[in-house]
Structure formats: structure tokens, C-alpha cells
């Protein structure tokens, strides 16, 4: 079993995924918990953008990619994950 990511990595990871459009911004009123499935899907999409194996886990490579130099704009535009992407 891959080692569980440290709480700090999860927290930073969720912030990062939210900032770049993979997760919808948290809504204080609903305080909806991020379902693990949604988090896993968000991580998979991010791994595709980063050219990483799409494990859905916040593994070491994924956390490291979140620290790489990049463009400030979100990767997923509009409501997270709902924008239709052109597939060849």
C-alpha cells in the first residue's frame, strides 16, 4: 500500500487542486466534505496534465509536480471538471 500522504500534503494538495480548477472552491455554508472519489478523480486529471501515471493518489511524484514552475491560470476552466474538453 502506498504510504498515506502526510496531512500537510493532503491539505496543500487540496488547496493546489482547488486553485487550479480541479476541485470546486469550498463553500463555507455547505462545508461539503470532498468525497474521496471526487478527490481521486481530481488528482487523476491533474496527473494527466502533469504527464504522470494516473493513480488518483497524492503520491510523492504528484506532490513534487505541484511545486514545479507553471502558469498561474487554472488548468480546468469554469466549474471544475465540467468544461467539455476536446478529445482527438
Amino acid at each position, binding site marked *: 500500500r502506498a504510504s498515506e500522504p502526510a496531512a500537510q500534503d493532503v491539505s496543500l494538495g487540496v488547496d493546489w487542486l482547488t486553485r*487550479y480548477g480541479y476541485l470546486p472552491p469550498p463553500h463555507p455554508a455547505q462545508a461539503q466534505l470532498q468525497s474521496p472519489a471526487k478527490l481521486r478523480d481530481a488528482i487523476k486529471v491533474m496527473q*494527466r*496534465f*502533469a*504527464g504522470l501515471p494516473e493513480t488518483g493518489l497524492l503520491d510523492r511524484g504528484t506532490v513534487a*509536480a505541484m*511545486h*514545479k*514552475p*507553471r*502558469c*498561474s*491560470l*487554472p*488548468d*480546468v*476552466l*469554469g466549474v471544475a471538471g465540467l*468544461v467539455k*474538453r*476536446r478529445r*482527438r
Partner: protein
Amino acid sequence: YALSGSMWKKRTLTWRVQSFPQSSALSQETVRTLMHHALTAWGVESGLRFREVGSQGPSEPDILIDFARAYHQDSYPFDGQGGTLAHAFFPGEHSISGDTHFDDEETWTFGSKAGPTPSCLAAPFLVWGWGTQLQPTLAPFPDGEGTDLFAVAVHEFGHALGLGHSSAPDSIMRPFYQGPVGNPAEYRLSQDDREGLQQLYGKAPQPPYDTPTRKPLAPPPPPPALPPDSPSLPGPDRCEGNFDAIANIRGETFFFKGPWFWRLQPSGQLVSPRPARLHRFWEGLPAQVQVIQAAYARHPDGRILLFSGPQFWVFQDRQLEGAARPLSDLGLPPGEAVDAVFSWPLNGKTYLIRGRRYWRYDEAAARPDPGYPRDLSLWEGAPLAPDDVTVSNTGDTYFFKGAHYWRFPKGSVQAEPDSPQPMGPKWLDCPAPSAGPRAPRTPKAT
């Protein structure tokens, strides 16, 4: 690819670099040239055109480029070195739409080794459009240091045109920095990026030709009021031809004759049928220089070089930069003069012709190439000792001599079969000459 959902309605977009990197070793000229190339990379694949405008323009340009740090009055504060590098705003009606910001705390570089120069660059006679061959203003940065400004600029201008991030492996629109992408003058978008762009703006209406997006040189100062008895049209008759020098300078073609010159705009329109005075325009050119024997615009940095006798002078825009220099600096024997000089935008090499010989100078390495002079007969059909040679905005090469020109189609070293042609009607708004003797055709190269 992904589309942002917005795009520009117009097809010609204006741009300006409003602020430059404070800490970078890149000169402002290099930054502007890199931006020109980054925009051109998108322009050649679509119907889009980009025009650089000055700060005195009537309105703000569509794409305003800034180097800023930390919080800079938009919703994407930068975070110091590393992390976020840049961002751009999608097309729209808002004043910030299209604007592009680079983090000034990054070490912006150009020319760090981006892999070996493609062999095609070695081809001595590959002729391409009017591009801008770049050279690093400083020795190339060792690999791994700094962030390649050209690569990031191409990415950000993709956003400024309406593209979102892409996960395609070879796309420039991937969100993460992928390192340098090679020679800006040759860079071509990946298929994924081309498809996304063409979804928005369609394909280029014709083979992609670079059109210079730098502002042409400022107009000459108005001529002083002529004394009443002066001839109606001072100076020589342009329709006689026999020019001393001809050069394509930022898209305009300059025809020099004695202490005069004419300017032809990219549209083919003469700025004026009256010649302008050499010394009133080229500030600092010594008064004793009354004939310019050759001229060209140097591609790495846009400087303009004027040659007379065994010397040449370097101009930044219209101002002389430094003292006269000997032609031997460019590899010619001491005391030698030139008939013609021209530069290949693609490989950054400059060719200097005297009689039937030519030398080659490597602008990027700042040294003459070994193994020269060579025989000019390599250019099949070209006249010996031409008045001058220049590469047009469409990438064709033109040799001029007397009242005729020889055209070499883009990428060819053979003159068009119907060369030479009278230059007056095509270039100078002059009547076709009476069917006088055709210019002597030079013997075919053996």
C-alpha cells in the same frame, strides 16, 4: 486542447511591452524581439496579424505586456522565483483582456542551449521570410539555469488568444514549464495547439509569411523649404536605377543614391517620390560620407549597418552607435570595400559581396566563417558586382544592378527564368523602360 470560450473578433491585434524585466540580462531589444517571435508563432498558423505600437498610440494595445512582481493589481499575485511564472487574460472587451504578465522575480533567459542547431541551419542558401534571427545578448545561460522567456511567452499568448491549458504531451499549452523550445525564428506550434487555434481563427489564408511587426523607422524630418530657384525635384532621378545600396529595413525597402534615399513601404507605396537627405535622417553619419555602397538590417538585434569604402557604421534605429569600423572586422581583406551585403534571417549569417566573390559572417558567433571568399556563381543567373542584394518581406532574394533586378524565389539559388526585370515599375512607381537592351545575363554557372 481546451478553448476558454472567448476569442478576438478582429484579426489584427496590437501589442506593446509596457515594462521590461529589471533583473534580467536580456536587453529590451531582445525582449521585444522574443515577443515578436512568440506572437508570430501563433500568427503564421492562423489569419492573425500582430502589430507593435508605441506608447504614444491613440489607444491601449490589445496585448499589453508587463514584467511585475508579487501583488500587481490583478487576481494572480506572483510568488517570487519559481512557482507561478506568468499569466495572461483571455480575449474580451475588458481593458485587461489579452494582457500578459511575467513574474519579474524569475531569471528570464534566452539562448540557453536548446539542443543542437538543426542541420538545415547549415544550408548556405536556405531563404526564408523576414524573420528575426536572435542571438543571446550574453553568452548562453548554462542549461538548467533560468526560465526561457520565449517558451513561456508562446504559452501565455495562447491564453491571450483564447486557449486554455492542454494535457497533450507536446503542447505548449501544458500548464507546467517544459524548458526551452529551440530557435524562436524556427519554432512551430504542435498539432494540438494549431488545431485549438484554428478552431477559433481558421487557418492561415496563405503560406505563412512573416511580416515584421516592429514599427518601421520614424519618418524623416520634413525637408527645409527649398530656395525659390531650386529644381522642382531635388536630387537624382529614381527611375534611372543604378542605386548605390538597397536594403529591407523593418519591412520598408530603402534605395540609396549619393547623399539621398527613397523609402518603399510594405504596401509598395513610396513614402515620397522626393528623395530624403541621407544626413538629415541617419543621425551621426559623418558628413564626408557621400555614398552608401551597401546596407542591411542585422537580424539578431535589428541594428542597421551602412557601408562606405572600407568602413561601416552601426545605427540603433536612426542614431549612430559608436565609431566607424573597418570591414576587416567582418572578415574582408584590409582596405577591401563591398558591393552588396545581405543577411539570412534564418541562420543569422551575413553575406558580403565584392565583384564575383563573397564572404560570410556569423552574427551569432560574432566572427567570419572560415573557408571564404567563395565564388558568387553559386547564385545561378545573378549579376556580378551587384549594386546590392536584399531579402524581401515574402522571403524572396533580390539582386539589383543598374535598372534591373533578378529574383530568386524563397529557398532557391536559381534566378527566375524571366530575370532580369526592369525594377522601375515594380519597385519605384516608374514607367516601364522603352525596350532598350536587356541587362547582360551572366553566364550560367558551370
